[in-house]
């Protein structure tokens, strides 16, 4: 039976049962209602009739009494009417009662009542008739008693009738109550049956359904635990819906099984693919690590061989040697054969060569046992399968690999090889290319470096050559110069002779006087004084002898003085000679004392000569020159000191201890210092540098007040310099001054060399690097010019373009010392005009800020003339103007120097730019 039918029957039967129950109930209710109706309508009607009879009976009696007693017609009439009405009612009630109730008992009673009623009525008629005749007639009491008796009997009968009816109704009621009780019990009975039947059905159906469903769910649950390949089936017991579900489930399970089988297959395939891919990726990832072919081969073979489950592998790379292609073993995996034969194959030689030639892989299966051996520490065995694979790039075999395995190669392994090897080909090619490029780059780099080295070498050689050349040129130039000089000297001599004769008459006379006229008499004077002092005849007093000696020594001084004047000339021309010998310092001291004590005494000044104890007794220098300097310094001191003291202090100065003293020569460790200290007028700070210049004195008025030529200090300084020392001055105006002569002690005197100048110059640079004051340097310059004899500035033509006349003047003075030819222009335009008329100008000093045509424009204009493209033009820029410098260079200036000018810097600069212009 189907599940649906079951449900239908069960629920249907319940409905039917309930319906039956209800119908029965309805029936019973109907029955009881009919019964009640009967009771109510019929019985009630009878009781009603009986009551009506009873009532009307009473009414007749009362009316009859009324009639009998009535006095008037009116009352008689109404009572008769009422009597008749009641009679009618009684008759009607009796009739209907007879009609309804036909039972014996009732009928008997009704009949009796009827008889009585008629007799009563006859009495009544008599009464009425009497009364009608005479209303005031009295009625016989007999008659009245009769009627009364009849009336009482009638009432009894009516009462009986009513009681009978009521009894009947009660009976009816009892009957209907019984019927009701029966109906209730019947209903209970039916209900019980219906319930039993319904429950029975329900249990039967539910049990049948749950049993099947449970079976299905158990099977379904067991699906999760069973393997997807073998799923449980549901046994089909019934043909109902559960059966259909089971069938559907079974179908689904079979589908699932089929599906899982497919899936498994797919997963396997995917796994294989992903293995392939991961292996390929692994190999691909390895490529970038490979820096060269060797590395690539090693990485590749060591990676690939285990990947394909093999245990032996060799990598051969194609190389070209002597126009023949070889396959050379460069990497191997667990390869053992050391035989040289297996290191290298020609194309087509062996299987390796063949493979490279054919460009096709070669598979060897079931190779013989002694083909190759794979060894480990424990043993050895022969692999059974060998693959030889060419590695190609664009149809060009680059390498060949050989792989051996115990197992036969699976299709996926072979597939891996097929997939991987082309990528290796590409990588190999790219690495080969890269290596080639790298090699070329490296070669080019080393070539560049080699080139640079060579060029430096060449530069050096060029430099050497140039130096040699220059030396040669110099030598040549020197010889030419010598020749020329000789020639010149000769000419000059001739000329000088003529000049001396003609124009220098005065000078020659002066010199002659100096040398001859002064010295000759002086000499005779000296000789005579000497003779006198010897006092040959003994006629001179001691005092006279002293006078003579003074004459002699003063004369001697005078002679020295004359010599000094000559010396100055020599110093100036650099011809002064110094003669070094051992000098006794005590001698010097005595000499000084002797010379100056009288002066001190005369002027009333204290004179102190002090020699420090550590001063050596003697040292090596030119005594005469030393005396000359000291005399000069002391006489100056005395000259300018009116009161107080003059002292000479001789001491030793060590390099380490006395830092203030700048040692000219670094290798000199100690010096002797001769300090002449006075308390005189002193020298103002700003003039301390100038007083050493020739013909200068501290104050223009000095010469007038104190006399003197102003030569002394400059001679002193020059001499000190020649002695390898120098003079230092410290002084305060009004406080006195201290001139200190430093002389090297225990020193081997060397002629002044260029190096000394360099040192001096560098020291000078350090101290006065940015000083703009230049006057003090002039002396240095002069000396340098003289000492070096040669200057690249000499006879050079310089054009100064500047509108500031003071500048031009200062420059002219300075440059004239270098014997330069100077041309001056007031502004740019004039400068260009002068340049054009003097194209042999060597260098231009160009001020920038000028009226009419400024420096930039002038430089640009000059540069636009092809002739002057490389002419050195030095721009004189204002220091404040930051940008003008770049503008100068843009305009075409060769270099620049900022104003106010540092002449040293300017000369250096001009030296640089005039270098090599000579000759």
């Amino acid at each position, binding site marked *: 039976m189907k599940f649906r039918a079951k449900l239908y029957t069960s629920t249907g039967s319940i409905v039917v049962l309930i319906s039956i129950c209800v119908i029965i109930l309805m029936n019973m209710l109907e029955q009881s209602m009919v019964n009640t109706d009967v009771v109510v309508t019929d019985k009630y009607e009878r009781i009603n009739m009986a009551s009506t009879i009873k009532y009307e009976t009473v009414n007749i009696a009362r009316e009859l009494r009324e009639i009998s007693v009535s006095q008037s017609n009116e009352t008689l009439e109404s009572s008769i009417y009422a009597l008749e009405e009641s009679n009618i009612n009684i008759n009607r009630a009796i009739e209907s009662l007879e009609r309804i109730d036909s039972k014996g008992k009732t009928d008997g009673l009704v009949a009796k009542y009827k008889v009585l009623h008629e007799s009563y009525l006859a009495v009544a008629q008599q009464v009425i008739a009497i009364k009608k005749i005479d209303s005031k007639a009295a009625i016989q009491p007999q008659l009245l008693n009769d009627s009364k008796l009849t009336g009482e009997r009638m009432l009894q009968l009516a009462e009986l009738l009513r009681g009978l009816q009521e009894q009947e109704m009660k009976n009816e009621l009892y009957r209907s109550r019984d019927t009701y009780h029966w109906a209730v019990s019947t209903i209970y009975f039916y209900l019980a049956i219906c319930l039993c039947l319904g429950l029975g059905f329900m249990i039967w159906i539910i049990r049948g359904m749950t049993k099947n469903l449970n079976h299905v769910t158990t099977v379904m649950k067991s699906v999760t635990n069973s393997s997807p390949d073998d799923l449980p089936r549901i046994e089909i017991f019934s043909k109902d819906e559960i059966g259909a579900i089971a069938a559907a489930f079974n179908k689904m399970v079979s589908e699932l099984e089929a599906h899982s089988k497919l899936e498994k297959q797919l997963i396997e395939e995917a796994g294989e693919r992903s293995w392939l891919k991961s292996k390929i990726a692994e190999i691909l990832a390895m490529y970038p690590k490979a820096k060269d072919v060797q590395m690539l081969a090693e990485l590749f073979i060591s990676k690939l061989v285990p990947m394909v489950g093999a245990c032996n592998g060799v990598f051969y790379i194609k190389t070209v040697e002597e126009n023949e292609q070889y396959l050379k073993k460069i990497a191997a995996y667990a390869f053992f054969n050391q035989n040289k034969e297996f290191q290298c194959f020609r194309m087509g030689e062996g299987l390796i060569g063949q493979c490279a030639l054919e460009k096709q892989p070669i598979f060897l299966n079931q190779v013989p046992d002694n083909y190759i051996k794979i060894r480990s520490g424990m043993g050895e065995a022969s692999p059974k399968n060998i693959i030889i694979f060419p590695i190609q790039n664009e149809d060009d075999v680059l390498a060949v690999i050989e792989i051996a395995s115990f197992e036969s190669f699976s299709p996926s392994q072979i597939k891996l090889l097929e997939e991987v090897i082309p990528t290796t080909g590409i990588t190999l090619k790219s690495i080969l290319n890269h290596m080639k490029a*790298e090699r070329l*780059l*490296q070669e080019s*780099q*080393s070539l*560049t*470096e*080699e*080139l*640079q*080295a*060579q060029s*430096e*070498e060449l*530069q*050096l050689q060029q*430099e050497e050559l140039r130096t040699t050349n220059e030396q040669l040129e110099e030598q040549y130039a020197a010889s030419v110069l010598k020749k020329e000089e000789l020639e010149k000297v000769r000419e000059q001599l001739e000329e000088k002779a003529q000049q001396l004769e003609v124009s220098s008459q005065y000078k020659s006379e002066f010199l002659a006087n100096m040398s001859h006229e002064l010295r000759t008499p002086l000499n005779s004077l000296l000789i005579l004084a000497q003779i006198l002092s010897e006092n040959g005849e003994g006629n001179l007093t001691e005092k006279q002898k002293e006078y003579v000696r003074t004459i002699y020594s003063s004369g001697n001084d005078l002679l020295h003085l004359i010599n000094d004047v000559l010396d100055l000339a020599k110093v100036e021309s650099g011809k002064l000679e110094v003669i070094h010998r051992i000098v006794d310092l005590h001698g010097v001291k005595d000499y000084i004392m002797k010379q100056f004590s009288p002066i001190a005494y005369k002027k009333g000044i204290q004179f102190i000569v002090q020699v420090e104890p550590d001063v050596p007794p003697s040292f090596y220098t030119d005594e005469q020159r030393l005396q000359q300097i000291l005399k000069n310094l002391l006489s100056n001191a005395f000259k300018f000191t009116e009161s107080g003291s003059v002292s000479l202090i001789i001491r030793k100065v060590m390099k380490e201890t006395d830092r203030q003293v700048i040692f000219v020569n670094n290798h000199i460790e100690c010096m002797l210092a001769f300090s002449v200290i006075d308390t005189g007028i002193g020298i103002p700070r700003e003039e301390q540098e100038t007083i050493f210049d020739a013909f200068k004195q501290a104050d223009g008025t000095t010469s007038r007040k104190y006399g003197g030529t102003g030569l002394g200090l400059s001679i002193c300084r020059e001499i000190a310099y020649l002695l390898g020392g120098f003079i230092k001055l410290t002084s305060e105006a009004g406080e006195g001054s201290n001139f200190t002569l430093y002389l090297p002690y225990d020193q081997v005197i060397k002629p002044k060399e*260029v190096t000394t*100048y*360099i040192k001096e*110059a*560098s*020291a*000078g*640079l*350090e101290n006065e*690097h*940015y000083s703009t004051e230049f006057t003090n340097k002039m002396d240095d310059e002069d000396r*340098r010019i003289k000492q*070096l004899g*040669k200057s*690249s500035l000499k006879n050079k033509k310089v054009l100064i373009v500047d509108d500031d006349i003071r500048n031009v003047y200062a420059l002219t003075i300075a440059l004239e010392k270098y014997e330069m030819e100077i041309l001056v222009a007031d502004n740019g335009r004039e400068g260009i005009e002068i340049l054009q008329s003097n194209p042999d100008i060597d260098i231009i000093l160009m001020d920038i800020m000028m009226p009419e045509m400024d420096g930039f424009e002038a430089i640009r204009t000059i540069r636009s003339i092809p002739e002057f493209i490389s002419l050195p033009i030095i721009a004189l820029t204002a220091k404040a103007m930051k940008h003008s*410098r770049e503008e100068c*260079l843009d305009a075409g200036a*060769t*270099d*620049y*120097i*900022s104003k106010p000018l*540092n002449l*040293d*810097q*300017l*000369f*250096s*600069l001009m*030296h*640089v*730019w005039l*270098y*090599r212009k000579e000759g």
Partner: protein
Amino acid sequence: MIENIEIDMLLEAIYRFYGYDFRNYTRPFIQRRIVQRVKKENLTSISALQEKILRDPIVMSKLFSDFSINVTEMFRDPSFFKFFRTNLIPVVRDYSEIRIWHVGCSTGEEVYSMAILLQEEGLFEKTKIYATDINKSVLEKAKKGTFSLADMQQYTKNYLLAGGTRAFSEYYKVVADQVVFPPALKKNVVFAEHNLVTDSSFHEFDIIICRNVLIYFNKCLQNDVHQLLYESLSLSGFLGLGKREGIRFTSYGTCYEEFNSTERLYRKFK
């Protein structure tokens, strides 16, 4: 062939006897210099030179001078100095101390140039320049700070091209045919003898200038020297090479990033 052997032997002999290792200098260069020396000494073979060299230190010193090429200029390759001034100086400006190693300073022109540049940039006071060379005599020259007047025109041009901010003439003084630079410029400069081949690192530097030194060395020695330079350079320190030199193919090429490829300035980053 014979010449090669002779050169090998000569260099070995020099190394063994004098301690100078020229064995890893580039062969063509060494060969040219030796052949030249053979000619100058009026000899017939390198072997003859070898004998002379072992017996006569003067010849050795001559050959030594031949081997040390002292080609230099003030502000050589002005663009290098210009770049140094504009791009490198800002990086090191805030260092508390700047240590510079001038490898192969030769006669010192570039050292003075660097000093001038640093002075103009106001960094000279906190800078220490170690200028080294293998050749003692060029170091002596360098210490003097006097250069030939003949080159000054070129130097002035270089100075201007290198972005000098003052007048170049402020720095020198001409004495005869020499130009003197003020001693103030070598105040923070230490000149010292140092042999790249045999001596080791002696300090850590912020900047190493090694221009046109390695071109005389072969690859192997170049790598060794690069190791020395690498070890002497602080992290994010700078290495300046010569115009024609490169760092890419050397052993430490990957440790530097290019600061400027044309000026061959590299910066160590690991």
